[in-house]
C-alpha cells in the first residue's frame, strides 16, 4: 500500500510483525479497533520469520551490510512536524538483535551434471584429497565459503575397480575422505572396501550446494525454533480465535535424546513405552507408574511434600527410578535443569503428559511451512477485520505530549504524522537511550542442513525433537528439532536441523561441540578426524549457520523509559514453546483495552453482516446482535472470566482439524480422543 494513502489517524499503531505484535494486532482489530501494522523489513514476522534458502542468504547479506544510518535530512522533516508542547522520541533504525552470524558450507560446489560425467573417468591423482582439505581448512572460517574440490576424482583414483560394479557414485565416501586428510592410506582402503556392505550410503545421492540453491524455494528456515504444545497457550489461542483455519500442522513424530554417545528414542506415550526396546519390563512399569502419578500429582501431596524445597532430580532419585528413567524424565519429558525444584518439575511433566494424545503420540505440533506462518496467520486475521499493513515502512519517532507524557502520534519513515492512542513496538526498535536496563540474555542458534536423520527409522518423514543434556556441567542444555521435508521446510533428501540453547558465549562456541558429536562435519579447523565407520554413520552437515539472538524476555515495562501508552513487546525467549509471547500479547491487549475480550472466535464468513446488507442489517436480528454484544461486555464487567464467556465455549468443536498426519486422510477426520 502506498504510504501517501495512509489515513492520518489510528486507534493503535503497531511496529514489528513478530508473534506478540501480530497477536495484539489481530486481537485489537477483531474487537473493532483501527490498526496500522508496520515493519521496517521487507518480510513478515521479524525475528520469528522463516526464509527460503535463497531468502536466508539475502537475509545474511542484509545483516552483514547493515550499518547505522547517519541522521539525515529526514530528521529535518520530522523535526518540523513536532509542535510546541510536544517531545520527539526517536526510534532506532538499526536492528542489533542478531549477532555473531557465521555460515559454513560443506556441500560440494560442483555442478551436478559435471559430476555424473566425471565419475566413470578415473584419473590418477591420489594426492588430491589432501590438497583439497587444506584449501578447505583455510577457507572455512569465512562465512559463505564452500568446501570445494575435485573430491570425486580423488577417490575415483583409489577405487577404480569398484566404480564399475556400483552404478551410483559413492558420494558420501568422498565427503568423508576430505574430512580425514591425515588418515593413512590403509585406513582409507579398508573403509572403501567395507562400503559396499552399507547400501544406504551408496544409494544416497550427494546434494551439492548448487542443488540447495536450485531447490532453495523448498526451504522454510525459521530464525526461531519452537514447537507448539498441543495444549499450550498458542494452540488454545489458535483454536479459540479460529486463526487455526489459516494454517496446517504436523505432529512431531518422536522425541529423542542424546545419551552415552548415542541418539535414543524417549518413550513418553503409552505406545512408546510398550514398544521401547531399551527399557526392561520393570522399568516400563516404573515409568508408567510415575507418569500416571504426575498426571494428577496435586492429589497426592504426601508423595512429594518432603521434596518441595529440593531439586526435582533428587525427587526422581528418591522414587527409585533407574538412571535411564531419571534421564528421560528430567531431560526429555519435564525438560528442566538439574536445579529445578520438585514442584516445577512435576508441573512440567504434567503439562507434557496432558498434551500427549491430543493430536498424536507426542505433545507437540509444528506448523507446515515453518513457524513464520503463525505470526502471518494473525496478521491475516487482523487484515480481515480491517487492519492496514505496510512492510519496509517504519516509524522515525514518537510524538509525546509533554503534559500528559503520552504518545499522541508517530512520524513514519515517509515523514507522515499519524496520530494514535496506543503504540505497540517490538524491542529491537528501541534506542539504548530509552532503556533503563540492558541486561538481556542471548540465545544461541544453529541451523543445519543435513543429508539424513540422526536416528533413521522406518519412516523418514518424521519430525524429531531431540534433547541434549549439557555435555559438560558448565555447558547449557541444547534443544534440537529435526525437520523432515514433509514439514515443507526443506527439500526432499535433506533434513533441516535447528539447535537452540541459552547462550554462554558465541553461538558457534556453544553449539559446535554438540554438532560435532551428533553429525559428521567434513572439516573443522584444528579437530582430529575420528574413526571413519562411526563418523559415516552420522548424518553429514551440508550447510550450517550460527547466530546469537537477543533474548529480551526478562525485561518488562520498568526496563524502558517510555510514555505509558507505549507498549514494548520483547522478542522470542529461549523456551521450547511460545506461551511467553502469547501471554505477553494478552497482557498488552488488556492494557490497551481492559474491557474487551481477547481474540474471541472469528465468525464464519457467511455469518458476517456487511454494511448495506439491507434488510438483515436493519431487521430484528440486528437489534439482537447488538444486545448480545452489550450483554457480553456487561458480563465481562461483572468479572466473568474469558474462558467462561459463552462464545468461547462454542470453540471446542472447532478443533484444529487441519493437523496432517503421516498418511493423507481421505476419510472423515478422527474425533479427538
Amino acid at each position, binding site marked *: 500500500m502506498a504510504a501517501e494513502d495512509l489515513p492520518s489517524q489510528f486507534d493503535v499503531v503497531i511496529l514489528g510483525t513478530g508473534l506478540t505484535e501480530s497477536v495484539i494486532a489481530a486481537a485489537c482489530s*477483531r*474487537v*473493532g*479497533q*483501527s490498526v496500522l501494522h508496520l515493519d521496517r523489513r521487507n518480510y513478515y514476522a521479524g525475528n520469528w520469520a522463516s526464509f527460503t534458502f535463497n531468502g536466508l542468504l539475502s537475509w545474511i547479506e542484509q545483516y552483514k551490510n547493515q550499518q547505522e544510518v547517519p541522521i539525515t535530512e529526514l530528521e529535518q522533516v520530522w523535526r518540523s512536524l513536532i509542535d510546541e508542547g510536544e517531545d520527539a522520541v526517536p526510534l532506532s533504525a538499526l536492528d542489533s538483535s542478531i549477532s555473531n552470524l557465521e555460515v559454513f558450507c560443506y556441500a560440494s560446489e560442483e555442478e551436478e551434471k559435471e559430476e555424473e560425467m566425471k565419475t566413470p573417468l578415473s584419473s590418477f591423482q591420489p594426492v588430491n584429497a589432501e590438497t583439497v582439505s587444506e584449501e578447505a581448512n583455510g577457507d572455512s572460517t569465512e562465512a559463505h565459503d564452500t568446501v570445494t574440490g575435485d573430491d570425486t576424482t580423488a577417490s575415483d583414483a583409489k577405487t577404480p575397480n569398484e566404480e564399475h560394479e556400483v552404478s551410483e557414485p559413492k558420494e558420501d565416501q568422498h565427503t568423508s575422505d576430505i574430512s580425514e586428510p591425515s588418515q593413512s592410506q590403509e585406513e582409507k582402503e579398508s573403509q572403501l572396501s567395507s562400503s559396499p556392505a552399507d547400501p544406504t550410503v551408496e544409494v544416497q545421492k550427494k546434494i551439492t550446494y548448487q542443488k540447495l540453491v536450485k531447490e532453495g524455494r523448498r526451504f522454510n528456515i525459521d530464525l526461531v525454533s519452537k514447537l507448539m504444545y498441543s495444549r499450550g497457550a498458542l494452540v488454545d489461542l489458535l483454536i479459540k480465535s479460529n486463526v487455526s483455519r489459516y494454517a496446517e500442522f504436523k505432529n512431531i513424530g518422536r522425541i529423542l535424546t542424546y545419551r552415552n554417545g548415542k541418539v535414543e528414542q524417549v518413550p513418553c506415550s*503409552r*505406545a512408546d*513405552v*510398550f*514398544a521401547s526396546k531399551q527399557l526392561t*519390563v*520393570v522399568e*516400563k*512399569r*516404573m515409568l*508408567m*507408574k510415575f507418569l500416571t502419578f504426575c498426571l494428577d500429582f496435586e492429589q497426592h501431596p504426601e508423595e512429594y511434600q518432603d521434596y518441595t524445597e529440593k531439586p526435582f532430580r533428587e525427587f526422581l532419585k528418591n522414587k527409585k527410578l533407574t538412571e535411564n528413567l531419571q534421564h528421560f524424565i528430567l531431560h526429555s519429558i519435564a525438560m528442566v535443569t538439574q536445579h529445578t525444584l520438585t514442584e516445577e518439575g512435576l508441573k512440567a511433566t504434567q503439562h507434557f503428559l496432558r498434551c500427549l494424545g491430543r493430536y498424536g503420540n507426542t505433545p507437540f505440533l509444528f506448523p507446515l511451512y515453518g513457524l513464520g506462518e503463525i505470526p502471518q496467520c494473525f496478521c491475516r486475521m487482523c487484515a480481515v*477485520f*480491517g487492519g492496514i499493513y505496510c512492510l519496509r515502512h517504519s516509524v522515525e519517532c514518537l510524538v509525546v505530549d509533554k503534559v500528559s507524557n503520552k504518545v499522541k502520534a508517530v512520524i513514519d519513515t515517509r515523514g507522515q504524522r499519524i496520530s494514535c492512542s496506543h503504540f505497540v513496538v517490538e524491542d529491537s526498535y528501541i534506542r539504548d537511550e530509552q532503556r533503563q536496563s540492558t541486561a538481556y540474555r542471548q540465545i544461541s542458534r544453529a541451523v543445519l542442513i543435513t543429508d539424513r536423520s540422526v536416528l533413521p527409522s522406518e519412516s523418514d518423514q518424521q519430525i524429531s525433537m531431540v534433547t541434549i543434556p549439557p555435555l559438560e556441567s558448565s555447558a547449557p542444555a541444547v534443544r534440537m528439532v529435526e525437520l523432515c521435508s514433509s514439514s515443507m521446510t526443506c527439500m526432499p533428501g535433506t533434513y533441516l536441523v535447528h539447535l537452540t540453547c541459552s547462550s554462554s558465549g558465541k553461538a558457534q562456541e556453544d553449539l559446535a561441540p554438540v554438532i560435532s558429536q551428533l553429525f559428521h562435519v567434513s572439516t573443522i579447523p584444528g579437530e582430529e578426524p575420528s574413526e571413519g565407520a562411526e563418523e559415516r554413520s552420522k548424518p553429514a552437515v551440508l550447510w550450517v549457520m550460527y547466530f546469537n539472538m537477543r533474548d529480551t524476555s526478562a525485561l518488562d515495562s520498568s526496563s524502558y523509559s517510555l510514555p505509558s501508552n507505549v507498549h514494548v513487546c520483547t522478542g522470542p525467549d529461549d523456551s521450547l514453546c511460545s506461551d511467553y509471547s502469547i501471554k505477553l500479547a494478552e497482557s498488552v491487549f488488556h492494557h490497551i483495552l481492559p474491557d474487551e475480550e481477547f481474540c474471541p472466535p472469528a*465468525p464464519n464468513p457467511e*455469518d*458476517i*453482516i456487511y454494511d448495506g446488507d439491507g434488510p*438483515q*442489517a436493519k431487521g430484528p*436480528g*440486528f437489534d*439482537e*446482535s447488538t444486545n*448480545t*454484544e452489550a450483554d457480553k461486555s456487561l458480563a465481562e464487567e461483572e468479572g466473568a472470566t474469558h474462558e467462561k464467556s459463552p462464545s468461547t465455549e462454542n470453540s471446542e468443536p472447532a478443533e484444529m482439524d487441519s493437523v496432517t498426519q503421516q*498418511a493423507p*486422510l*481421505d*476419510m*472423515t477426520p*478422527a474425533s479427538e480422543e
Partner: protein
Amino acid sequence: MHGRVKIKSTAQQEEEKRKEKEKKLKAFVSARDAVLKKRSAGEHDEEALQLTRQLLSSNPDFATLWNYRREVLLHLETLREKDEVQKLYESELHFIEACLKVNPKSYGCWHHRTWVNTRLPQPDWTRELGLCDRCLSLDERNFHCWDYRRVVVKASGVSVEQELQFTDRLIGSNFSNYSSWHYRSTLLPQLHPQPAPDSAPNTSPSPTTSPQFHSHRVCEEQLLKEYELSHNAFFTDPNDQSAWFYYRWLLGRAEREEMISCVYVSREGERVSVAFSKPVHAQSEGLMLVLDGQPQQVEWRSTHPRLRHSPVWLCDLPPGSISDMSNEHNLTIHWTEKHTHRDCALYTGCAESWCRDSATNLELFRSELSVEKSSVLQAELQSCNQLLELEPQNKWCLLTIILLMRALDPLGHEKETLAHFQTLKEVDPMRSTYYSDLCSKFLIENTILKMEYAEVRVFSLSNKNLTTLCHLDQLLFVTHINLSSNQLLRLPPHFAMLQCLEVLEADDNAIENLEGLYHLPKLEEVSLRNNQICKLSDLESLASCTKLTRLDLRGNPVHRTAHIESELSQLLPRVTALSL
C-alpha cells in the same frame, strides 16, 4: 460500539438452519418417492443410479436403495463391454468410499462393496487393503472394516507373514485393541505351527498317552517372543485386559481329548456306568457294549433327565446276565465314533468293578494352562510375581498367577492360591462371586487329587466356603461325602452322577434345591441340617433314591409346613429315621 463486525445472532442462525433442514427433508422425500416408483416400474437405467446416488450419499444406511442399485448394475452389466463394466464398478467403488465418509460403520456400504468386488472383472485388492488400513487408523474398532478386510485378505491371498506384520503395527500403535491381538492368535499357529508329535494323530491313543490334545499351538521359539510382547504390554499397563487375555491364550488353553475315562460295573444293580472326559450325548455317539464277546442291546441314559449332554452315562444289563457272583465277566465299551474302546473285568466274588486311569496321571484339572512345559511356566510365574510386587492390587496379575500356580503344582501352591483369591475378592468385589466359584472349583480339584493319592472313597470338604460343586463325574466311586459348613445353594443335577454314594452330609449350607439327589441307587443316609429347604416339593426327588432310610432336616424352614411329618412319610415311606 462502532466499527464492530456485525454477526448474525443465534436465533437467526437457528431459523436458517431449520429452514435448510426442512428443505433438505422435502428434497429427500420427493427423491425417495421417485426412486421407489421407478423400482416398482422395473426401470433399470442410468437415472436410477443417479437418483439412488443422491439419496445414498446423504443417507448410506438405506438398504432398499442399495438393493435397487444392485439390480440396476446387474442389468447394465449385460448391456456393456467388459472394459465398460470395469469402469462402471470402479466408479461404484468411488461412490461407496464417499458414502463411508458419511458413515464409516454403514452395513449397507460395506456389504455393497463386498458385492461390487465380486462383480468387478479385475478387482484391485491392494487399493481395498489400503482403504481398510485408512479406516482402521481412524477407528481401530470398526468391526465392519475388520470383516471386510478378512474378505479382502482371503480373496487377494495376502501372506500370513504380512498379516502378522499388520497386527504388529496395530498393536504397536495401540495395544489395547483386542481385535489385533485376537487376529494375531489366529495367524501364529499358521505361521509357526508346533512340530507334529511323533505318533501319528490317527492311531487310537493308549491310556498312557497324555490326554491333552494340542491343537492350534505355536512353536516354542515364537511363543517365547510372544510372551515377551505380552509382558511389555501388561507391564506398561497392567489394567489393560487385552494383553492378559492374549497371554492366557499363549499359556495354552488345551482341550481335553474325548475319551472314555472310566467304566464301572455293579453286580447288584446290574448296571454299567461309563464316564467320558467331556460331556457327550451317548445316544447319538454310537456307544456299544460287549459282554463276554456278545454285543448287548442296551439303552443308554444320562444320570439326570436335565442333562442331555453328560460326562456320565448309565445302562442296565439284561436281568440275570451278571448277577451270579461265581462268574467272571469281561465288558468292553466301544465308542465307534471316536474309534476307541475300554475294557473292564468283573472277577469272581466281586460285587463291583471299575477300570480307569488314576487322576494323578491324567493331570485332570490342569488343562487350562498345562500344555506348556513347566520350565516355561515357572519363568512366567516369576515374571508375574515380579509385576505383583510392583502392583500388589492388580487383579489380572493375581488371577494369572493363580492359574500358573495351578498348572505347576496345585497342591503345593494351595495356601498361596487361597491368599490370592482373598485379595482378588477384596480388590475386585464386583466379581467376588466369580472368584468364589473358581476357588471352589480349585478346592474340589485339590481334594480329588488328595483322595486319589490316599486311595479312599471318602470325599470330605467341609468349612471351605464352597459356593459351587463341579467335577462330580470324578466322584463316581465315592461312598461318603461331607460338604458341611459351606455356602452351597443347591445340589445340582450333576450330583446324580455319584452312583456309589451311600452317605451325604451337607449340614450348615444354604441349600434350597435337591435336584441332584436323583436315582442314587445306594444312598442310605442324608443329613441336611440348617439349610434353606422350604417346601415339601423340594424333597420330591428324594423319592427316587430307593435305599434312603435316614434323613435329617433339622433347622430347615420346611418344618413349618403344615402336616409335614405325615406328608413326608407319604412321600418317602422307606425313611425310618426322620429328624425335623
